[in-house]
């Protein structure tokens, strides 16, 4: 390790700038990075130039700032009272910003009184051929860092007190799983179910794919554990009538069967409101007009009640020798071909579970009535999951005849002389038109979200084009909503099968458990804040804010005068700064990223000479808006 090389001297070995003003004493530390920076940037010249900045008290350069001796330079300067704000000009902040913030903390300084300037990845490594200009650039960038930190206030993470309780809306398989997983962490749960029993859609099934477990057993298992759990309170025949608050403290009003209202306070809310089956329009593929045309859920009932009898499988008093299953009814719809839903949109999405559910129904049918001939009319067979393909193969082996219809030309179901004829174009026989006689037709109907428009309106929940609840990031944050503290479990978010719904429910539970792991949630301090002295109540900021409740207008009384002022709810603010951009008086800023700081940084970049820069105090007083936005 080389000695700390120190630019021209004072008694303590550091360069003294002008006497520090208004208490701001910035320490500047320029790193050589063992030649990675200093081979291109004249690091000593940078330290020397910065020493002339009026806010800089100490300016040093050193071979490895990230090393222990390097960090100790900072700690010692802070502890000796020489500096109370720090700039390190070194590598990218992604590598060592945290390192140096921790050094500040060790020295007893607020870690946010720190600015990291990147003179390696964005200077020395990219301007190898021009040492002089690279050095000049490093000086300007470091000066900009000084300008920024000189105006930096202490920041503290925002503490939101947390109600140690979770509300789960919906008592199907996803809701019960989420409730159990959360309650197992010792967190109290209120499980709110609109029906008068738990179990949801799973109660409609006989057995589940691909394990062939009895659905009733699985429901009973879940229900038993939920009911027995000391931490779970179950509200049946209950309806949510109000929901407000934010992460950590939601308030939910629930109307019970006796019309009384229960109020629930919860730190997080899990939506498990589930799905509805697509209901064919009257006459669609013969449904509703021909008794032997049923939906897949209706066929589950048929299967449940069908008794092996003389002559085989019977339905509606007739022997059924052949069944045609038609896929994608109410799913993968195409505008102009399929009739739209009441909202004018077709269901253009895939319902994910129906291919496997259909082939599983075929298996259940043929397990008991092997003589029944099965036709399967599909666009694609999407048996994607573990064990699903086996069902496809089994059906093929047992003689199911597969026909593939074009996306744009779905089959039709007609009745001639009391016989059902399914007419379809079959791609597999090169587009031949086929008329398939079938005794029964089963429509593999898709999933649609449960109508929860009242709940959606209460918290302005994001909904996708497919009408399902929309997660904040479809790839990386699949169970969280943009509304912090509101989580998604199961098919309210999109079609999924039971085990996918269970996985989603447990993931929603883990997110709730994380939020509730401590008595307070600590949120990043980088959120908007309003200077009440500057706010003139013009409300321009309100229109910019995308986050419901983050910014509100309230009556504020000061010195006997009451006025409407903007107020930020930190727990709901994400710190994007859209509001700050439109405030004519600069009353709103994002903490840590104020516009005054950026103006000062630009001044430092354009300045010819570091010494000419104003002190932070003078600058703060000199700001005048270039023009005032006019409220429309």
């Amino acid at each position, binding site marked *: 390790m080389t000695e700390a090389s120190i630019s021209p001297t004072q008694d303590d070995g550091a360069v003294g700038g002008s006497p520090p003003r208004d208490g701001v004493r910035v320490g500047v530390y320029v790193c050589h*990075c063992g030649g*990675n920076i200093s081979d291109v940037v004249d690091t000593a010249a940078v330290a020397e130039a910065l020493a002339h900045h009026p806010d800089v008290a100490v300016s040093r350069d050193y071979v*490895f700032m*990230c090393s222990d001796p390097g960090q100790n330079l900072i700690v010692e300067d802070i502890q000796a009272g020489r500096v109370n704000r720090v700039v390190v000009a070194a590598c990218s902040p992604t*590598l060592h910003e*945290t390192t140096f913030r921790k050094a500040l903390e060790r020295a007893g300084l607020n870690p946010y009184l720190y600015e990291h300037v990147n003179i390696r990845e964005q200077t020395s490594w990219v301007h190898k051929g021009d040492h002089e200009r690279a050095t000049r650039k490093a000086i300007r960038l470091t000066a900009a860092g000084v300008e920024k930190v000189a105006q930096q206030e202490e920041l503290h993470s925002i503490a939101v007190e947390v109600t140690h309780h979770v509300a789960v809306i919906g008592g199907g398989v996803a809701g019960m*799983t989420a409730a159990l*997983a959360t309650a*197992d*962490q*010792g967190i109290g749960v209120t499980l709110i179910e609109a029906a008068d029993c738990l179990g949801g859609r799973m109660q409609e099934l006989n057995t*589940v794919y691909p*394990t062939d*477990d009895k659905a009733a057993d*699985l429901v009973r298992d*879940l229900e038993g554990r939920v009911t027995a759990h000391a931490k779970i309170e179950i509200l049946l025949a209950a309806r949510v009538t109000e929901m407000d608050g934010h992460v950590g403290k939601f308030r939910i009003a629930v109307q019970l069967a006796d019309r009384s209202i229960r109020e629930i306070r919860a730190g997080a809310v899990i939506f498990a409101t589930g799905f509805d089956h697509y209901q064919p329009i009257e006459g669609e593929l013969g449904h509703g007009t021909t008794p032997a045309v049923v939906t897949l859920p209706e066929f589950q009932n048929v299967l449940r009640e069908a008794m092996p009898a003389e002559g085989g499988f019977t339905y509606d008093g007739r022997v059924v020798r052949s069944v045609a299953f038609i896929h994608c009814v109410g799913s993968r719809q195409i505008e102009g071909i399929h009739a739209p839903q009441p909202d004018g949109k077709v269901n253009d*999405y*895939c319902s*994910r579970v129906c*291919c496997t559910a259909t082939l599983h129904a075929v298996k259940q049918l043929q397990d008991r009535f092997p003589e029944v001939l099965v036709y399967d009319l599909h666009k*694609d*067979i*999407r*048996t*994607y*999951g*573990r064990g699903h393909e*086996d069902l496809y193969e089994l059906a093929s082996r047992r003689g199911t005849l597969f026909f*593939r219809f074009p996306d744009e030309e779905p089959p039709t179901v007609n009745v001639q002389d009391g016989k059902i004829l399914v007419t379809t174009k079959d*791609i*597999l026989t*090169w*587009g031949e038109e086929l008329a398939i006689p079938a005794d029964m037709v089963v429509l593999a109907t898709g999933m649609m979200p449960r109508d929860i428009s009242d709940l959606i309106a209460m918290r302005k929940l994001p909904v*996708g*084009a*497919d009408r399902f609840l929309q997660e904040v*990031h*479809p*790839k*990386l944050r*699949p*169970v969280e909503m943009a509304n912090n503290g509101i989580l998604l479990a199961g098919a309210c*978010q*999109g079609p999924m099968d*039971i085990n*996918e719904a*269970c*996985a*989603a429910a*447990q*993931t929603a*539970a*883990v*997110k709730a*458990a*994380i939020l509730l*792991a*401590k008595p307070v*949630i*600590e949120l990043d301090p980088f959120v908007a804040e309003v200077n009440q002295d500057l706010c003139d109540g013009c409300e321009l900021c309100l229109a910019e804010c995308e986050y419901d409740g983050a910014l509100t207008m309230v009556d504020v009384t000061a010195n006997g005068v009451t006025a409407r002022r903007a107020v930020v709810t930190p727990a709901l603010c994400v710190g994007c700064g859209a509001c700050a951009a439109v405030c004519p008086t600069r009353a709103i800023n994002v903490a840590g990223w104020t516009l005054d700081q950026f103006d000062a940084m630009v001044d430092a970049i354009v300045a010819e000479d570091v010494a000419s820069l104003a002190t932070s105090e003078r600058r703060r007083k000199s700001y005048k808006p270039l023009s005032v936005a006019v409220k429309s």
Partner: protein
Amino acid sequence: MKTTTRQIRTDVLVVGAGIAGLQASLDLADQGRSVVLVEKRPSIGGAMINLSKVFPTLDCASCITTPRMASVAHHPNIQLFTLTELRSVEKTTDRFRAQMVKKPRFIDESKCIGCKRCEEACTVYLPDEFEHGLGARKAISIPFTNAIPQYPVLDEENCLLCGSCARACPTECIDFLQEPEEIEVDAGAVIMTTGFDLTPIDVKPHYGGGGFPNVLSPLQMERLLAPHGPYGGVMRPSDGRTPDSIAYVQCAGSRDKSIGVPYCSRVCCMYAIKQAMLLSGSLPIADITIYYMDIRAFGKGYEQFYQNAKAMGINFVKAKVARIREDENHNLFLRIERQDDGSGPQEVQHDLVVLSLGMVPAWIPSRDGIVPLEADSDGFVRLPSAKLRPNLTTMDGVFAAGAATGPKDIVDAITDAGAAAMAASNYLARLAGSRVVTAGAVR
């Protein structure tokens, strides 16, 4: 072999630092659980950090993976071990004892500043694993641009011991004599997130058996499409020519009993569609054809993505590809049988072919294996109560998630990992009788 030994006690040992392992670790650590995360490769990030963009959002994969990797690396409750192999896990009464070996990088991590001077000085060029052989790396190198940690690894087998790197290093951190380190972990629970491998490209001799330069694996195509890829664009490996006609052969490593992969790999349809879309963006005049059996666009927003691809002019042809041959210029000829018209068997020419390879388990469990779990017939971790408890394995206290339990795309792996973290956390809570917060901040 001289070794040092370290002992660590932790709540949960997470094995594999792909996206599932990262997510499971974060979801535990954010609850206050301590985590030891072990990864055999030199960087975390798994398969996801290797991708160009992700479907159906077309987000840049690196941009959304890197922040998550950084969160893991900086988390006070997570201890990360890269280039470290798990050797054994045995159950003691209520806990697990795991033996790991941290292999030498031959650099002192406490001194390295990630400046790559050693890499610049090294004179030995080797095929770059991160670029799937399409680019070159040095015998000492940081594995890839946004690798975490940003330390180089000295390739022991190929190093000439010339000393150039050591002379170039400004911190004198190169240590040619570094020894492996044995680490013993005492963990309350274990999560296996061991991920997948692609079905080998040479598994089908009638598709060239891996010997045709212009027949690519999908991950090679990911690299060609990445903004920081090896060629800076999409070119034919054989001659650097921009391809005018590109074909995808679907189910080239799935739904095929003859290669022992009878199941659907779930992601191949979507990555093929995604790559086709990206290709039509970067090569607007190229013809892109996808030969498929079924298009399985089943996830949220996937069907719409597929329909967009059709509208963009990507050709979807329902056909089986019987074999592929190449001519002396490495042009490719596919023997196909269309199933959607009566045109019969025919041969079609393409400049570049991507085999849509499937997923096989990266680790196949066995009762006498490193972790004594059972595998299903598909080789993935067996889940005895898959329906309601999708992360429970055959061993109490050991959980599994992500592609270790069957092919999954990113979002399904992330959801599954969160569920595994919850299951492990609840298992520990049950053992402890009450919930104990062991450490640290919640973020």
